[in-house]
């Protein structure tokens, strides 16, 4: 499924976020077009989650602009962005532990209808979509990590979002679980959802990305297709430091390409 070359759904223009002396995000511009799958990668502390928080409204940019569906939304609070179709998950999964899985998803489903039965039915539909109906009655506190992650995605889906921002949704999962999640995300993408994901697991990035953006120390240092980025010397250097065996060979192939 190719991303259509229409107006961007979500974009940041030259955004920066300063915390005292630290510039966590420095002049980053990126655009996500409808139907795209874009990944953000980068070493720890690169500013990925901060960038997410700028997009979702948890933080306000010190400089620059966030635009969604053509509108500048710097001043729009997070709950309004969610209402307009921006779903997100958190790096540390935040299930509402006193409620069961169904009720967790209902929280999202209530957005469109205040009626309990309608919200419940919508939530069931979402649970079916993500393959968790059998866990509907399980208290969120008793779910495994991979189930909690999926529950977060489900809660975001219940909003009927246009774009979903996933923050390291694969972290801590074993290979089998990662495979299941990727299948799920692929099917959701096939149904028309746009994705912007932060990922550390580069196998995931390779398997589920059209475009990859690399952040390092707050700056955007590279942008391209998954293949281009994952084989690029600059990226390897950012992750593993210069002098790594792989980087020399990659540098050589970079030169050949150039």
């Amino acid at each position, binding site marked *: 499924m190719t991303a259509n070359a229409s107006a961007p759904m979500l974009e940041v223009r030259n955004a920066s976020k300063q915390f*005292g002396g630290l510039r966590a995000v420095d002049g980053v511009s990126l655009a996500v077009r409808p139907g795209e799958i874009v990944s953000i990668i980068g070493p720890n502390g690169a500013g990925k989650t901060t960038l997410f928080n700028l997009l979702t*409204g*948890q*933080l*306000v940019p010190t400089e620059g602009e966030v635009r969604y569906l053509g509108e500048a939304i710097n001043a729009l*609070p*997070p709950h309004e962005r969610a209402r307009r179709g921006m779903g997100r998950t958190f790096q540390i999964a935040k299930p509402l532990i006193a409620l069961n899985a169904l009720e967790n998803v209902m929280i999202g489903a209530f957005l469109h209808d205040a009626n309990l039965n309608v919200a419940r039915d919508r939530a069931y539909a979402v649970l079916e979509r993500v393959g968790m109906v059998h866990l509907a009655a399980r208290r969120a506190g008793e779910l495994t990590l991979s189930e909690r992650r999926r529950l977060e995605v489900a809660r975001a889906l219940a909003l009927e979002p246009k774009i979903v921002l996933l923050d390291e949704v694969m972290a801590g999962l074993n290979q089998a679980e990662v495979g299941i999640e990727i299948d799920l995300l692929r099917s959701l993408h096939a149904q028309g959802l746009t994705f912007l994901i932060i990922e550390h697991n580069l196998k995931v990035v390779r398997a589920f990305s059209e475009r990859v953006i690399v952040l390092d120390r707050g700056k955007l240092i590279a942008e391209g297709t998954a293949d281009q980025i994952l084989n690029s010397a600059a990226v390897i250097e950012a992750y593993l430091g210069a002098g790594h065996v792989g980087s020399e060979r990659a540098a050589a192939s970079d030169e050949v390409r150039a």
Partner: protein
Amino acid sequence: MDIFFTVLVFGLLLGGIYGLVSIGLNLIFGVVRIVNFAQGELVMFGMYGGFFAWHWWGINPYLSVFLVAPLVGLLGVAIQRLVIQPLQHEPNMQIFATFGLLMLFQNLMLMVSRGEAYSVGGQVGSTVLTVGDLKLSLVRVVTLVAATLITIGLHLFLARTMTGKAIRAVTQDKRAARAMGINVEKTFLITFGIGAALAGMAGVLLTPIYSITPGVGGNFILAAFAVVVLGGLGSVWGAYLGGLVVGIVEAFAGFYIDPVLRSAVWFVIFLIVLVVKPSGLLGQVGAEEVGFREQH
């Protein structure tokens, strides 16, 4: 102009009392990051301790402080170990626990004292110093001096000693301190102990000034919260300065508007600081964790 000066001085002396009472709370706040609703009761215990030492054995409060303060400090260590530590990740339950301690302590003393108010009589309490045109209560001057000395002492302790440095490290960044090998739980115990001892010390030093009842802690706790918030968490000098400011504002509000407004003054200060500058006058970065949230 004359009256203005008198009120100002009164405010300064009152500020000395508030600074003295708040210094322990500020330490606990800044380091352990909990709200100890029972702090006023630790002051109260200090007062009763000072009173009983004087009443039974004739010991002057300015001497018995060296006995009473450590005892209250030990109580503080027990509170931290038994009540606070198990609840360190549950701020809402901390409210219940420390408020429960407040009720328990107050009413234990009520049972013991049968509702009688005590006071340490004698010359010390009523001596008045005359400086120019001003008449200053000696004990209040002593309290201000004591507050200043204790602040300096605590500052030196935190800056120069190993324990003090450990405490400062934990205040700044608990995780980093732990990674450096500092035993955070032990530091909390020590800090609560010191904070409680300081409260007890304040109580003993205040025995000549206040009438001692089980509820006397309530006089201070709200003002202390205002002082700590104004001065900034984790800053020793912040508590001192905050105390002076609160004392002065209260004195002026009391004189020019209405003495009844004391609690309103504390509350307004509290709210204004939290809304305008949550880290207070001299607060450290860590203040955001305890009670404030990022704007949005």
